[in-house]
């Protein structure tokens, strides 16, 4: 059971404030939805937590350990996992190898054990064609592979960045089910960034709304959706529901 704490986090890019004084913590097997209009700072927030960027100010802690200035691979070992909005598979490796990476490098398992574990993980995610090269997978399989890749690092906190993008409604349903299963079985806290409100409604125990890098609202889906600020922000930024 892990806990992620974000304190007063700010990130500026050449004068532009992408994340503005954000305070947020969640953990356990909680699933929180992070929503907001385009450019609200959702992906930047994930990038800050996973160590792609370093914040301008503020603090990030996982299970009480300060990871604010830690390199990405060390955060992974401490239990921060994530997927990418634009998928980043390792094209020169097979699917199973893509997944083994996490077991080997963040949990220090041997190649043999990593392979067994990866196969088990694939089975549990209904990802059968694990011996193929990534280029032969379909979109749903790639999404599953991304999630498996992240799960292989044994995360306490898993951040999913628009993992549903590009899926049709059947595929969407399957993946939602999968994520629910994962959260329950693996006891992972999940932060999910999503545009499709249906997904958030289905999955999230709690919803955080970002606008211009700052938190606009934080609460249950129903609460947040009634918040006049949120309605204003969404009406201003287009209809996402």
């Amino acid at each position, binding site marked *: 059971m892990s806990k992620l704490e974000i304190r007063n986090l700010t990130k500026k890019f050449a004068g532009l404030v992408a994340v503005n004084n954000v305070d947020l913590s969640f953990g356990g097997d909680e699933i929180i939805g992070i929503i907001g209009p385009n450019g609200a700072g959702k992906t930047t927030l994930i990038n800050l937590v*996973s*160590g*792609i960027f370093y914040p301008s100010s503020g603090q990030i802690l996982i299970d009480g350990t300060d990871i604010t200035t830690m*390199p*990405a*691979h060390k955060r*992974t*070992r401490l239990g921060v*996992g*994530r997927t*990418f909005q634009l998928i*980043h*598979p*390792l*094209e*020169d*490796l097979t699917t199973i*190898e893509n997944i*083994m*990476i*996490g077991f*080997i*490098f*963040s*949990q220090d398992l041997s*190649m043999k054990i990593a392979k067994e574990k990866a196969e088990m993980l694939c089975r549990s995610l209904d990802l059968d064609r694990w011996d193929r090269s990534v*280029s032969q997978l379909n979109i749903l399989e790639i999404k599953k592979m991304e999630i498996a*890749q*992240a799960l*292989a*690092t044994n995360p306490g906190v898993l951040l999913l960045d628009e993992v549903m993008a590009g899926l049709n409604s059947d595929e969407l349903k399957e993946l939602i089910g999968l994520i629910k299963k994962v959260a329950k079985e693996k006891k992972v806290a999940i932060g999910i960034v999503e545009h499709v409100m249906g997904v958030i409604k289905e999955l999230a125990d709690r919803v955080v709304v970002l606008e211009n890098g700052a938190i606009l609202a934080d609460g249950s889906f129903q609460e947040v959706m009634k918040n006049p600020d949120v309605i204003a922000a969404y009406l201003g930024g287009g209809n996402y529901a």
Partner: protein
Amino acid sequence: MKISPKIVIFLIIILLSIAFPFFAGPYQQSIAKNVIIYMILALSWNMLLKTGQISFGLAGFFGIGAYASVLLSLKLGIPPILTIVLGGIVTSLVASAMGMIILRLRAMYFAITTLALGEIFRVIIHNVPNFAGGAHGLILPGVIFDGNGLYTYWLFLGAALFSIGLSYYFDKSKIHLALTAIRDNETTAKVRGIDIFKYLLIVFTITAGMQGIAGGLYAQSFGFVTPESSFSGDFILLPIAMALLGGIYTTAGPVVGAIVLGVISEYLKLYIPYGHLIVYGLIIVIVILFMPNGIIGALYVKIDGRKTFGKVDQPNE
């Protein structure tokens, strides 16, 4: 352990190459030795290439290894074989110190920096006549094994097998996964727990050591070093061409490439004494045009039906 045909054939080849001097003359052996020098360079360069990093520092490390080996022999009287190994270690140390600074560079910036460092080593050696012989270089009182061709060949073969083994280990171990991940996408690699800098440093250090050992072998078997010949640009692009023509990212590629190009160049000059290098250049051009994935890559396509065979990141824009 079950004996697969692969292992049997591999053993036969090793035995054949050990027995090579008994059915081939000194000339063939010397060609084999030259091929091995370039093979080690091509293999080691290819090992670093798996991370996506293109090094032009081969000649620099080759020269450091050669000079270290000769200087250790001359100044401290250490036996030649030991100086070759020590030369490799010295080269590794130099490389790891350099790597701390330059391994965050990428693509052609990394390439040009390694090239520049190699040149700097050459200029330094050139300008310290009292220590390293300056522009003239240094000669050894004798060559390794007193010029015994058989032992020298086996020493070279040992170095070649060691390099092939190391490269094979890189292909099969978790290092392969780390390096390929770094090449394909650094962001994914680090988020999945790979310490990119650590692996780059490890590979850079090891491959530089191999290049240093090649330099030591060269210096000890010919008995001299000079700045011009030990840091020669021939040790940069020819091994790269060999690796590429054989097929990059594999162990077999550089090995096959070094043998094919090394043998072709000897063959050509027997028939075209004046101007054979034109044909040599043409062969390089034609192979690149018609076998863009190299010889081994072309074979894979034939056998696997695989279309693509790895790719290198596009230059930074």
